[in-house]
């Protein structure tokens, strides 16, 4: 078990390094700076934790791990706030909407966290780190779901880079939500499953990101921008057609 987790941890570091190196090589780093900054932080903290693990004792490593995990988690939230800007591009309203969804959900979680710290003296952040991580993963899932839903609803094309970024984050967030929830519910018995599946899901996310970000492939050309009046006419005419269909329904018997 220990060997497996070490192999997975070193594989993760290697893939993170490959993604960053490739990002610098193909100039993706500047285009998706938020994501690469996040990945760089994850790489640095992971290397730091690996070193600490061999030097200091386990009681020190545990709280340190959770503190750094929460820092990278918060940066991950920043990446998710940044994604709508790349996905929706010219669709200003959709971009704003999804960014606000992300900011509000993350804000709500951090506010709840701050209230717990400020008003509950017995509540220790590190002791409840798993719970906080689960809540933040749920908060990450909500904006991701809104992006997935809106792109599907309006048929907006997403480039390979962003599709991979969303999928990678989604896979890791989804697995984390399920496992953290079960872990909190079942307790220590669930630990062996957690120790294998979570790192593997992170490797899966890294693999998706490697493939998706290997080359710069944004979505095709931005949509034209008809005037605001055109949109209102469209909405008005759609509404009118709905009324016309409604009239047909109203003619059914026994009304």
């Amino acid at each position: 078990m220990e060997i497996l987790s070490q192999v997975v941890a070193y594989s993760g570091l290697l893939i993170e390094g490959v993604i960053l190196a490739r990002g610098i090589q193909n100039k993706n780093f500047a285009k998706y700076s938020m994501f690469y900054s996040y990945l760089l932080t994850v790489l640095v903290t992971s290397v730091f934790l690996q070193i600490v693990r061999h030097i200091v004792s386990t009681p020190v490593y545990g709280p340190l791990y959770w503190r750094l995990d929460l820092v990278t988690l918060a940066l991950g939230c920043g990446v998710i706030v940044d994604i709508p800007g790349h996905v929706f591009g010219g669709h200003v309203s959709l971009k704003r909407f999804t960014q606000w969804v992300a900011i509000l959900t993350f804000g709500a979680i951090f506010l709840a966290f701050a209230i717990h710290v400020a008003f509950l003296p017995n509540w220790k952040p590190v002791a409840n780190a798993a719970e906080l991580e689960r809540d933040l993963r749920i908060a990450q899932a909500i904006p991701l779901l809104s992006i997935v839903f809106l792109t599907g609803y309006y048929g907006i094309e997403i480039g390979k880079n962003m599709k991979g970024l969303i999928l990678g984050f989604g896979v890791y967030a989804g697995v984390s939500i399920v496992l953290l929830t079960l872990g909190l519910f079942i307790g220590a018995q669930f630990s062996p499953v957690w120790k294998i599946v979570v790192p593997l899901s992170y490797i899966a996310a890294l693999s998706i990101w490697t493939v998706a970000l290997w080359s710069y492939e944004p979505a095709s050309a931005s949509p034209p921008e008809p005037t605001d009046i055109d949109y209102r006419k469209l909405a008005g005419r759609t509404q009118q057609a709905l009324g016309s269909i409604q009239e047909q329904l109203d003619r059914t018997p026994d009304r």
Partner: protein
Amino acid sequence: MIQLILSLLVGLVLAVSLYFFARRPKPSAEGSAQRLREARQTLDSLQDGLLPNDLVERIFAREDLEYVIAAAPPDVQSLFLADRKNVALGWVRRVRAAVLELMRFHRGHARLHARLSFSTELRLALNFAGLLTACRLLQITFYLRGPYAAPGMVRTAAAAAGRVCSISENSLAFLNVKGIDPFEGGGARHRA
């Protein structure tokens, strides 16, 4: 326990959404003037020639039923009811298809606009959902109880449709700004 169920539900919804997201085909490239014209024509045909009014009145005419009951033997009566049921179901299918077509058109066209009105989009989405639900209820009613179903059952569907109707009116008032006529095109205004 509720927290457990809700968290697992979020995870499950995310997994299912990502599955379909990964398999989603590339949307067709729309936006050219030709596509825009075609889309306008689709909307015009929906508005002007959706379903002839006299046909609707004919399908649900109670006089026909009363005549058949009064004049025809039982086997002819059941044949008439079965036939009328099929016609009514076919009519609801057409209305439902028209709603879906209109929804597809609106979404396909709305995505070309950079600045969408969130409240208008939400109202339209609710209207579409309401109409599709009303159509489904009518389909179930006609399927189970025939074209001249019990008033109670039809009223349930009609009530849902009525709610959609009032939302539509509010939405139209919102859209009716100076210089913009949402009724431009000459279609008949619905009864609220």
